């Protein structure tokens, strides 16, 4: 069975410091991976995706993610955190049994302190 795990419920970072939000996956075949961000009482916003190609994927708002096949990871990163980055972040993987569906992780709450 395929799955995606976000091992940290909460990540706390000081403004200006680099941030990492972790994600690991389990899927047969080539993974199609995604990151989304959700601000309070809002819908999810698509940040970036990895389908194939360069292992470092750049996305919206200065975020990037690194695909690591040997570690089955797809960590979200940003060189310098902003207070406005505080939100709930979801990692997701395409469901290989149904290309129409995406499997979401449980979410990581990112808190950036001034």
């Amino acid at each position, binding site marked *: 069975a395929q799955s995606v795990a976000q091992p940290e419920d909460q990540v706390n970072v000081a403004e200006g410091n680099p941030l990492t939000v972790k994600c690991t996956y389990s899927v047969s075949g080539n993974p*199609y991976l*995604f990151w*989304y961000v959700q601000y*309070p*009482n*809002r*819908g*999810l*916003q*698509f940040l970036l*995706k990895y*389908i194939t190609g360069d292992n470092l994927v750049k996305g919206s708002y200065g975020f990037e993610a690194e695909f690591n096949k040997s570690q089955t990871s797809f960590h979200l990163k940003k060189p310098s955190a902003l207070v406005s980055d505080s939100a*709930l972040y*979801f990692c997701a993987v*395409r469901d290989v049994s149904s*290309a*129409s*569906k*995406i499997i*979401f*992780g*449980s*979410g990581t709450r990112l808190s950036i302190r001034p």
Partner: protein
Amino acid sequence: SQTIHQWPATLVQPVGSPLSLECTVEGTSNPNLYWYRQAAGRGLQLLFYSVGIGQISSEVPQNLSASRPQDRQFILSSKKLLLSDSGFYLCAWRATGAYEQYFGPGTRLTVT
């Protein structure tokens, strides 16, 4: 560009009352459409998805139902709401041939 709308934004309904939430997408044709529920600001639960008009796949058997009367319209319904139906309901769409989904602003439902 494509946009997705959901209404109402918030809804307070008594137990046993009916429900109708609507989602529409603009700027695209033949999208895949999805209904999710999010409880307590955390994980997403896929409720229904549709790959075309009149084609509905149910992921979770419960007292909710979905319909797609038009290409870009997706409706979530219930005949009698339960307390456990409270939550944040999100509609999403995906373009044919693409992989990522795009979400609407959501509807906050409170069943009292």
